[in-house]
């Protein structure tokens, strides 16, 4: 075997087993493809850095919920959370009441909403971790329950009083300080919500004892118990963290729509399925114990910029249909790739 072929197979192996370089390459491919199409005049509007930056606003809820799923799926034993969308709906209504109708100060309303989301997550956590429900079942049940309560709580009416409408300013784009003139404006939500969440989750998973415990129980539940780890508490907290993040997403969503909508997180195919998709695409193993924050963030960027380009490549609602095609294809291939690498190289890192 010559060195060149060896070198090539090393690169193949790197791309197949290391999800992060693969995602980075895919992002470059997607962006370059749309730039070329744009230069050729095939798009209905210009696909440039301004457009890419503006489209990041849809990355905020997606990436945050993807991180919520990351934490839950990491905890292992079939961990998954189907109820995040319903928690977003219900917490959003709570935020609507607190800030829009009862006139609480904004910071207090946000804290209350996030804590409420955490409470919803705690319900999941108790069911899964302490009582022993399979996560799919417990969160399916709470999905139905939270969704129903969110709709009934205000008689199906959205809350869009003046204070809520003014929140829309949170989702507009701002110019960055110092370097602002030379780079595109970035949606404010990226800085106020997404980046703090990303940093917090990264610190939690990579820099705290809790993070190590979470990976440990996800990799081998029994071994972790015999090592004296508080398995139940750790798994319980994973669902609480997912709930807290969902509560924060509720605030983002209310600001984005300028209205607290009772079906915000569950309309259409809901928010949970895209979030799980993002997590899986980002290299999170559905069996638990494997997954990184960077993978989830890159997977979000890939999907958001792909979707943004598809919207420009088709006229009317064709675009949103082709987004489904793209999402489905990417997910199926990611899953097949995970299966392939597991068999050939012993797993994705």
């Amino acid at each position, binding site marked *: 075997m010559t060195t060149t072929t060896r070198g090539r197979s090393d690169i193949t192996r790197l791309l197949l087993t290391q999800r992060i370089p693969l995602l980075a390459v895919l992002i470059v491919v997607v962006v370059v493809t749309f730039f070329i199409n744009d230069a050729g005049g095939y798009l209905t509007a210009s696909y440039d850095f301004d457009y890419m930056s503006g489209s990041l606003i849809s990355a905020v809820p997606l990436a945050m919920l993807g991180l919520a799923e990351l934490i839950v799926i990491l905890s292992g034993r079939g961990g*998954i959370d*189907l109820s995040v969308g319903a928690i977003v709906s219900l917490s959003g209504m709570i935020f609507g009441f607190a800030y829009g109708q009862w006139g609480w100060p904004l910071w207090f309303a946000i804290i209350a909403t996030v804590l409420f989301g955490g409470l919803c997550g705690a319900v999941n956590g108790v*069911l899964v971790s302490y*009582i*022993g*429900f*399979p996560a*799919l*079942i*417990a969160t*399916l*049940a*709470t*999905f*139905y*329950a*939270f*969704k*129903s*309560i969110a*709709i*009934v709580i205000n*008689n*199906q009416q959205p809350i869009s009083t003046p204070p809520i409408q003014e929140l829309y300013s949170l989702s507009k784009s701002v110019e960055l300080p110092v370097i602002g003139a030379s780079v595109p404006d970035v949606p404010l939500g990226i800085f106020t919500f997404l980046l703090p969440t990303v940093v917090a989750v990264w610190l939690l998973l990579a820099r705290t004892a809790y993070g190590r415990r979470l990976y440990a129980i996800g990799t081998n539940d029994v071994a972790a118990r015999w090592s004296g780890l508080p398995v139940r508490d750790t798994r319980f907290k994973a669902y609480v963290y997912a709930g807290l993040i969902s509560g924060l997403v509720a605030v983002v969503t209310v600001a984005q729509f300028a209205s607290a909508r009772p079906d915000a997180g569950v309309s*259409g*195919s809901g928010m949970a*399925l895209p979030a*799980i*998709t993002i997590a*899986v695409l980002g290299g999170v193993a*559905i*069996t638990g114990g494997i997954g990184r924050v960077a993978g989830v963030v890159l997977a979000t960027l890939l999907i958001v910029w792909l979707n943004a380009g598809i919207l420009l490549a088709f006229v*009317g*609602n064709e675009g949103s*249909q*082709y987004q*489904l*095609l793209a*999402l*489905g*294809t*990417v*997910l*199926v291939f990611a*899953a*097949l790739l*995970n*299966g392939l690498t597991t*068999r050939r190289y012993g797993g994705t890192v």
Partner: protein
Amino acid sequence: MTTESLNKNDKTEKNEKSPKRVRVLPAPVTGQEVVLVGVIALLWAGLALSTPAFLTAGSIQPLLVATAPIALIGVGMTIVIITGGIDVSVGGAIMVCSVLTAKTLVGSGVNLGVAVLLSVLTGGVLGLVNGVLIAYGRVHAIIITFGTANLFMFLGLQIFGSGTVNGIPGTLAFFGRGPDGRTLGVPHAFLITVLVTAAAWWYLRHTAGGRHFFAIGGDAQAARLAGVRVQRRVLLAYTTTGLLVGLASCFVIAQGTSTLDQTVGSGKELAVIAAVVIGGTSIMGGRGSVLGTLLGALLVQSVASGVTQLGWRSQLSDLFVGIFIIVAVGADLLRARARRSR
């Protein structure tokens, strides 16, 4: 546990004269099913007392018709979940089958048999796609079917073109709510569902092929070593679900008015899974019954119907669905714990 019982089965058949026959099959009716019958009876009695109109043919017949598609798909989903898998793409598959069939009915006015055949075959192909990917791609069922759910929705929306399908002729009224859809007062859709459930119950309980599904769900590796063709069985489970989705889509078209809109099928996958789980099938695989699924679907639909008849908000029924899932699975967990500690 199931492979073990299979072996015992062989032994008892050989030693016909052995004085004490060991019971090798699970009880024909599980405790969960008895409880479900009781709960449904209580619910119906309560509803009959509070709204006298409930226990009339005009109220029960639509209830049975509405139960049919969920329960019918639930038969396939039960088999899939028994093997340890899951199929969250049935909502998308319903959309593809029903819009294709509806468009064909509008466009070329085919007769009932052709329409049903078209829908069932379409569903079968979609199920086959899932089955091939899961059995031979060896990937997690939930991930793959999330992916194919998106692909099916894309396909369905493409066939829809723009807006709704209008002016669907009454060819499928045989399955509908109207007088054409009943024989001796029993809706055809529900009758077919009961027959399919009965056949599946017998197949799963009394044939080697049926027991193989349980063996796979119990321990796929052990099943393979015992000679079960795991991949083919898994393929069969998803294809069966697809075929039943096709038939159920005919019920869905027949239940509606002459129009079909783009929300068709949305959220149905979770409704089917809820019915299966309430019916006592273990999501971990290896244990379950189609009879329970039928009862679970009936219970969910009874609650939905009751909530509307009591004049409450219809979305409130989802809250009860959530509570039922927790209670049903929770009771099962407690029983399992009691078995272990005994």
